């Protein structure tokens, strides 16, 4: 998923070096502190790397593999201890930052403090962190479960800070390495997953760690969480840096769409000051929330047909304090009560599943989206595999042109009440097709003016989907 790796780079622009992207994880080094990293929006979780190796050869005997797993711990205990002291340092730094912020110390002083610590860190050890793009629910007690009951974001923010403090206390509480309590969460996939269960491997590592360092296992409330992932591409061990996944936002009460995806879509959309951004099937409003939080200068409008979804969205907006930035409408995406060419950006999660039949409904929705969009406007959609394939296939064989040309022949006009646009819509689809001089990319939508810009496959956990970006060009051609 190179796109997300790019987004991570974007976010961490000034301080990231050595980025490597492998199968859903982005490995990078940085000198940012925890608070900066906490703000990463495109990643699900953040880990501090302990070890990254080539995959274990699953073809060897079971005993041999078990041995290799144990060697993970025993071969190089130093790297484990180093990682753990880095982890402790990071947490301490995080809290110190919080405290100094709260005391409103002059910023200059804070900077200096950070600088020396960072310099020291870089000298003594290279910090490598992993990010993971898939959701992996290894943490048994998600603190966000209790947090979801709270209404106000400030309370939630405070709790997050308290969480970090607790972590530090726990880390500090383990004065010597021997006092540390730990838990191993393991995931085995690929060929090795067929030989061993995740629990088996986890147990072996746990025992090896206990023997090597004298730590005590605590499954309920350990100081330290170790995360291990074995698959066909790598063997990776790391320490999760935050209790709740990064994807669980303090400002979203009930998430619909995964917030990392929502944020990624919003960033592709190029939202600027004063842009009208529409989500014609907003559901609980996740996309608009992510967008409005990061780009507060747009004008956001969400629409849905369902009362319960709109209520949920309204709750989310209230909890996030974004009522003023996002307007809600009860309207149908098939028929938007908006004049043509009145919207700058459309971002939407096209519903998957059987309720939305492939064919008629999705085409009508796209037609409406195209109609209300300004020339030069952007559409970013999340499409299921089926929808994506449908649009690809339809677009490949022909390229319908707007035969009347009335719809988009006035690119300069911002709001165009075209008297013929209602009749146009049905005509456009059945109009004569011309093989134009224009190059027809095989992903072209069957609507003359929407030009595909980029398309990314993303993982939603159990399934994959596509984020597709289009721009509306003037249909009158080059």
């Amino acid at each position, binding site marked *: 998923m190179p796109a997300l790796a790019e987004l991570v780079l974007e976010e961490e622009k000034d301080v990231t070096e050595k980025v490597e992207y492998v199968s859903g994880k982005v490995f990078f080094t940085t000198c940012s502190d925890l608070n900066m990293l906490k703000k990463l929006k495109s990643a699900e979780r953040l880990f501090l790397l302990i070890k990254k190796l080539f995959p274990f050869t699953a073809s060897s005997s079971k005993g041999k593999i078990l041995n290799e797993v144990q060697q993970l711990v025993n071969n190089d205990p130093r790297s484990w201890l180093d990682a753990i002291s880095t982890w402790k340092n990071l947490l301490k730094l995080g809290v110190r930052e919080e405290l100094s912020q709260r005391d409103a110390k002059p910023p200059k002083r804070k900077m200096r403090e950070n600088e020396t610590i960072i310099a020291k860190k870089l000298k003594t050890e290279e910090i490598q962190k992993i990010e993971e793009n898939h959701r992996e629910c290894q943490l048994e007690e998600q603190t966000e479960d209790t947090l979801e009951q709270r209404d106000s974001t400030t309370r939630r923010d405070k709790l997050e800070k308290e969480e970090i403090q607790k972590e530090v206390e726990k880390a500090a509480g383990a004065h010597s390495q021997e006092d540390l309590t730990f838990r191993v969460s393991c995931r085995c996939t690929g060929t090795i997953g067929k030989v061993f269960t995740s629990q088996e491997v986890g147990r072996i590592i746990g025992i090896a760690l206990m023997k090597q360092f004298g730590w005590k296992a605590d499954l309920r409330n350990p100081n330290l969480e170790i995360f291990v992932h074995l698959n066909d591409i790598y063997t990776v061990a790391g320490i999760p840096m935050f209790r709740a996944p990064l994807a669980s936002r303090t400002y979203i009460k009930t998430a619909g769409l995964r917030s990392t995806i929502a944020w990624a879509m919003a960033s592709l959309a190029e939202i600027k*000051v*004063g842009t*009208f951004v529409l989500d014609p099937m907003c559901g609980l409003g996740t996309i608009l929330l992510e967008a409005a939080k990061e780009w507060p*200068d747009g*004008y956001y*409008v969400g629409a849905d*047909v369902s009362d319960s979804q*709109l209520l949920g969205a*309204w709750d989310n907006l209230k909890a996030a304090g974004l*009522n*003023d930035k996002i*307007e*809600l*409408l*009860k*309207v*149908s995406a*098939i*028929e*938007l*009560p*908006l*004049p043509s060419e*009145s919207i700058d950006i459309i971002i939407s999660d096209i519903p998957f599943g059987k309720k939305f039949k492939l064919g008629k409904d999705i085409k*009508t929705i796209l037609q409406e989206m195209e109609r209300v969009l300004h020339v030069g406007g952007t559409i970013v959609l999340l499409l299921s595999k089926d929808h994506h394939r449908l649009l690809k296939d339809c677009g490949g064989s022909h390229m319908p042109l707007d035969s009347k040309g009335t719809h988009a022949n006035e690119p300069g006009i*911002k*709001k165009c*009440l*075209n*008297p013929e*646009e*209602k009749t146009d819509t*049905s005509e456009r689809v059945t109009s004569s097709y011309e093989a134009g001089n224009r190059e027809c990319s095989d992903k072209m939508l069957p609507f003359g003016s929407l030009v595909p810009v980029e398309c990314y496959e993303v993982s939603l956990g159990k399934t994959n989907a596509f984020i597709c970006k289009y721009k509306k060009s003037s249909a009158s051609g080059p």
Partner: protein
Amino acid sequence: MKLLTHNLLSSHVRGVGPRGFPLRLQATEVRVNPVEFNPDFVARMIPKVEWAALLEAADTLHLAEVPRAPTEGYEHDEDFLRKMHHVLLEVEVLEGTLQCPESGRLFPISRGIPNMLLNDEETET
């Protein structure tokens, strides 16, 4: 529903076309919220505003001090921008109706959310 949103909405009842704009506003409950003033944002909205529609709506709500048209060099006219900011973003219609000027069809506004769903006979497609 803010007046900036009202300024965008148009009736899509069958056969109405552009005569479905603007929707006639009737309000039974209105609230004024303070909203952070962002002059850049407001300045960019001005060219997109349909003035007649805005003035009609503002009059219905008996709003005072509504500029009748953009002033020369409005981008730097803070007084003008603040007034527009107030009209467009700070006035919220919580309960009321929107009426299609051509067909007379009423669309209710409830809890600040306009309901513009049509039944099958009324839709175009």
